[in-house]
């Protein structure tokens, strides 16, 4: 198969975890304003970004998401006083962890989209979709799911030495 063709045919799956008060409402506004954006995104509504557990992001990638968006209220605008502040720290740490594990952070976008920012919602979703489309499918977790066991590769000199000694 022609590699470029494959890339063009690829429709990324984007999962968005959003808070109900700001970003969900912002996405609603994009709708009422009849703005257009790629149909790749699936929105999961949470009361607040504070409710979004990093495990969900992991789960989304494992379920085949090619990109994940987490979006909530701007700092200070949280309907629940401070949920987004907690989320901000939680995700700052989590993305560092994922990065260290080897996940390309271009696939994981965080944003503040207020209820008034229909345009920003469109921009964020479109940007992420196009960025991920250009990157191609997220293969890492999918490949992992296909594997049953450790490769058994001998990747340290000590092991090699021990192995050869047997």
């Amino acid at each position, binding site marked *: 198969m022609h590699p470029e063709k494959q890339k063009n045919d690829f429709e990324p799956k984007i999962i968005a975890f959003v808070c109900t008060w700001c970003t969900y409402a912002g996405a609603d506004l994009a709708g009422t304003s009849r703005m257009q954006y790629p149909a790749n995104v699936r929105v999961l509504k949470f009361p607040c970004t504070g409710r979004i557990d990093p495990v969900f992001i992991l789960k989304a990638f494992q379920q085949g998401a090619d990109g994940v968006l987490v979006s909530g209220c701007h700092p200070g605008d949280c309907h629940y006083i401070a949920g987004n*502040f*907690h989320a901000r720290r939680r*995700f700052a*740490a989590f993305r560092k962890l994922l990065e260290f*594990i*080897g*996940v*390309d952070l271009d696939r994981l976008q965080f944003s503040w989209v207020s209820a008034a920012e229909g345009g920003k919602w469109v921009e964020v979703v479109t940007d992420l979709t196009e960025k991920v489309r250009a990157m191609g499918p997220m293969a890492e977790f999918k490949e*992992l799911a296909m594997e049953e066991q450790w490769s058994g590769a001998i*990747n340290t000199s000590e092991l090699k030495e021990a192995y050869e000694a047997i």
Partner: protein
Amino acid sequence: MTQPIDTSIYAAITEAIQAEAKRLLSEGQVSVVIGYAAGRRKGSVQPVVVSDAAIADKLIFTPASVNNLAVYLTKAKKEIPKSGKIGVVVKGCDLKALVGLMGESQLKREELYLIGVPCAGVLASTVQPDTVLTADTIASKCCECDAHLPTGCDFVPNVTLPTRPQLEWKYAAEIARLEALTPAERWSFWKEQFAKCIKCYACRQVCPFCFCEQCLCDRNKPQMVESTPRPAGNTAWHIVRAMHLAGRCAGCAECERVCPMDIPLNLLNRKMAKELKELYDYEASLEVNEKGPLTSYTDKDDQSFIK
């Protein structure tokens, strides 16, 4: 021949612990003292709970006293008498864990009698327990230790810590090496590491912070993390574990020590500690913090990663 590390003070420490334990038990100040005792193999050491002053001289401290005894105060504490204070022998690294547990309402300071140990370092591995402590055999965590002398304890043997040679910071070096790789290279590194995991959960068992009665990863309604020892589930387990320990892990490195598959687990914990230090200027210390870095916030926190 690598550089030896002076552990001559450990004999004096052993004596001081025994004397103090004897005094505490006989005076009834504590109901038990948790410490280290000699194992069957030569040079080996195992944790012990001493409830009788008569056998207090079983308590020792040697380079093989690697265990973090804090773990016996959480999960294992059910077997330990509930009445009265508990004496516990702690190294600096263990004390950080104890302090962390206090911050998480798992322990109360007034219920503990802390016997602090000035520590020059312990062995990386106890497979051969009577190994001499050298720059090669010393645990990696000890190379980067900033708590040789525990503070805030009820009793600390009066010894002078010997000066130590400059040791290589192995975690820092390895983190830097991995950070320099591409995401794909890092992924393949960790993929290989996590794939080895056999889900024996020794890491969880030994960790003082894994005190949940039911681990999230054991739940099946819903199943957040696959429980079978397959690469996908293993990776998820280790990511979740690292995340749950972020901002809490005190760095005792017990997880890494007990891992039968030699997965460099503390590397993840050190990485997270490093990031939290950089982001929020937080690190595990010998003082009780009311809130951890991930249970608090300021309105000025970094958000450069957020659009």
